[in-house]
């Protein structure tokens, strides 16, 4: 039975990372925004959604965090997504006004590091390195679930969220908006010369991506019941980037494949390797090495990723059929 729970845990991470990957994909693959701070947007969603469902910190528990409000988890999840959009708005106003590509990426890395240090050291915000824990499990009141049956129900819920977010993202990608974003990615000056408001378009991609990051983060916090500063470090950023690049930048199905390959297979499978008591850090290091090797192999042999960006065709429109 343990194996079944474990498998359903992996299925959950597959769903959650698909959502995360789409968010990065619209920013990086769609609009060409190299958002190295992406994991910070995930963290904002997780912290805000988690804290809002939990109550205020119990006196004497030693915990201290803001926002505790006993909100229903779906509202909290939405708030997490919106809070992440708030950070996106802030980052966009700093970064998109004057900066491009590499410089933009540097500013976003810096933003991520500042956010990380701030959350770690300013304990009253989200309890510093200890982070949030004991976040109430969704549906626990409704279905009288135990810790194990919760996994099944929450998997189902995550599947619904994933399907809805896939539908929305694929509509966006194929729309004229998605096309304009790709024009910005290809050449900002040309886009401007054609009358595109590049700032507004980049901001749109930033906000949509941030929302996906926030929702993904919220799902993760409800599933694991805890979130702290070890949950959003550099390796986590690397996992999402690797997943999107390996799956195929600019392809939403590629992002799904990437979420299967990287966070699920390449991060989880090495955990079955026999542990060496003398080297407890060995397995996580093997994880990173394997992902790194896979990333190099993909960039070398198939830089467009496993499922490359699809060429837009207008055949259906010519035939007068809906492409929506």
């Amino acid at each position, binding site marked *: 039975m343990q194996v079944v729970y474990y498998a359903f845990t992996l299925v959950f991470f597959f769903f959650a990372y698909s959502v995360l990957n789409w968010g990065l994909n619209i920013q990086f693959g769609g609009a060409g925004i190299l958002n190295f701070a992406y994991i910070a947007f995930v963290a904002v969603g997780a912290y805000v959604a988690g804290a809002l469902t939990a109550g205020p910190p119990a006196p004497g528990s030693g915990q201290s965090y803001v926002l505790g409000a006993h909100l229903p988890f779906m509202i909290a999840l939405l708030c997490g997504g919106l809070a992440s959009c708030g950070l996106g708005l802030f980052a966009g106003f700093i970064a998109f006004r004057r900066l491009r590509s590499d410089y933009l990426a540097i500013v976003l890395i810096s933003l991520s590091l500042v956010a990380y240090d701030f959350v770690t050291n300013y304990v009253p915000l989200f309890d510093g390195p200890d982070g949030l824990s004991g976040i109430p499990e969704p549906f626990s009141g409704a279905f009288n679930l135990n810790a194990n049956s919760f996994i099944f129900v929450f998997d189902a819920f995550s599947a619904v969220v994933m399907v809805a977010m896939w539908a*929305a993202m694929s*509509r*966006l990608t194929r*729309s*004229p*908006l998605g*096309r*304009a974003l*790709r*024009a910005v*990615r*290809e*050449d900002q*000056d*040309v*886009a*401007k*010369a*054609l*009358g*595109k*408001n*590049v700032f507004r*378009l980049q901001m*749109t991609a930033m906000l*949509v991506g941030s929302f996906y990051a926030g929702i993904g983060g919220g799902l993760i916090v409800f599933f694991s019941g805890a979130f702290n500063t070890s949950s959003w470090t550099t390796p986590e950023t690397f996992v999402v980037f690797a997943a999107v690049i390996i799956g195929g930048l600019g392809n939403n199905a590629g992002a799904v494949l990437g979420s299967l390959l990287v966070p699920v297979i390449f991060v989880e499978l090495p955990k079955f390797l026999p542990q060496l008591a003398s080297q407890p850090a060995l397995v996580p290091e093997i994880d990173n090495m394997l992902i790194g090797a896979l990333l190099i192999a993909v960039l070398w042999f198939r830089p467009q990723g496993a499922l490359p*960006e699809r*060429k*837009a*065709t*207008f055949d259906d*429109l*010519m035939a*007068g059929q*809906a*492409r*929506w």
Partner: protein
Amino acid sequence: MPADEVPGGQLAGAARPNQPAPADALHCVGLRKAFGGVQAVDGATFVVPAGSISALIGPNGAGKSTAVNVIAGAVSPDGGKVRLFGHDITGWPAHRVAGAGLVRTFQLSRELGRLTVLENLMVTPRGQLGESLWNVFFRPSAIRRQERQYLARALDILAVFGLYELRDHYAGQLSGGQKRLLELARAVMAEPRVLLLDEPMAGINPALVAQIAGHIEGLRASGVTVLMVEHNLNVVESVCERVIVMAEGRTLAVGTMAELRAHPEVVRAYLGGALSAGTAR
């Protein structure tokens, strides 16, 4: 009625008195732009009459491209005024200038490489309903209607430019000449009032030069005002009725190519011994 108006006709080279639209598509006064210590544009002043094909010529480093960049809003000027059909557009950001109807091309053709040829045209029209997040989710049928109109027009334009068969190729895969054609096709799709072409003939073969010149004349016939920076003086002579010569950031002379060939300063600064060769480069 003004004294010099021909009865039943109109003022030579000027707007009809009862028509508010100014006759000058583009009016640049005292444009100045420096990069570090280099005064690239230093008081350039010129007018591009509506409905004309005008050329901007001059030696390398005369400030032509900078002038184009200033007019199109790619760089903001240090001084001077740019008026588009009488409206002051000085210092407007590039997308706003384009929104006002002034579309430019680039010296090195800049296609959107990983968009298809057809998409390069489809992305061009301004004010697309489908570029708003709200409309994408809540007005799909309005978007679809608009997309059908754009598609029909884009396919027509591609046919005219001989790119129809290549419509599903990535623009990055086109040859140099095809990229030039695509850039011009995209400019046509944008339905500009004023088109700024930065060296449209650079690096293309003679047969294609004639073809592109034909397209530019076609654009003018449809009411577009064209200003082109160009070094191929044969093209300038045959296509442009009005030539503006720049040197050292200033406007040196304005006239027809024939008049300029008799202009001693222009000959000294630019034409030099190139008269016999027809090009100066």
